């Protein structure tokens, strides 16, 4: 995936279940780790979602505010999830 132009900007939205919400998928992964022979013992394993919006320009303030709106209305459900927005250039 090197086709992006040098000037592209990736806006990344990470969505995670809130800490207090049960995450059975994360638990299943945690249970699979030792079964597969990994000696890791994380105190918590959680699964989330990642969204990437790629722009061919530096997002404007208006676009950033729209991305925030989209994140809190569509990409994440604030009742059960939290999200973080960051940019990769």
């Amino acid at each position, binding site marked *: 995936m090197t086709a992006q132009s040098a000037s592209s900007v990736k806006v990344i939205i990470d969505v995670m279940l809130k800490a207090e919400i049960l995450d*059975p998928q994360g638990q299943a992964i945690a249970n699979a780790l030792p079964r597969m022979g990994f000696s890791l013992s994380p105190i918590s394993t959680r699964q989330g979602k990642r969204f990437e919006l790629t722009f061919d320009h530096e997002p404007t303030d208006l676009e950033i505010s729209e991305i925030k709106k989209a994140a809190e209305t569509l990409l994440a459900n604030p*009742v*059960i999830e939290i999200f973080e927005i960051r940019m990769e250039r």
Partner: protein
Amino acid sequence: MRVGVVTFPGTLDDFDAARAVRFAGGESVSLWHGDEDLVKVDAVILPGGFSYGDYLRCGAIARFAPVMSSIIEGAKNGLPVLGICNGFQILCESHLLPGALTRNKGLHFYCKDQELEILNNTTLWTNDFKVGEKIVIPLKNGEGSFQCDDKTLDELEGEGRIIARYIGENPNGSRNAIAGISNAAGNVVGIMPHPEHAIDSLTGPSTDGLAFFTSILKKMVNA
């Protein structure tokens, strides 16, 4: 008495929901997800299935369908709305009901006949039950675990808005074994198990589900 049954792409149980309405003595009206016009129906059912393939989150895309803008506006003005399974998920995503439905504890998709206790018979969709009545209707879902914050849970318990609870082992990890809830006004109800599959002994494990549909018909006829 005309009850609209919405079909989204991926809806599965619209035919059974429409049949349940007819069994109860009402007229079922098909509503299409892309159509804002509710054609003056007296009540709406959001049936089960996998609307929009459950992409993003269950009910998350359906919530923004044109038909939902009319249903959300109507529900706020008293339009009776029943959401079953995926319909319950859509009602939560629409914020017509609090909380959210998340992946079942244990990750299994459950498909079984489930015993429930009815806890509230004052809503538009449960008034034909008796409080404490035990019923058996099918439960079939992968994401039926009702979750909400402590404050919301206290409100639901305190205001008697939990309409039904699972009996026996909690099948999906729902908080307080919640199977269904209502809004404060009692016109919007969401239930995870499927009453529309239990209206006729030929096709269901019982006829216990029929009372959801006779409830709304009696209420509307008497109103």
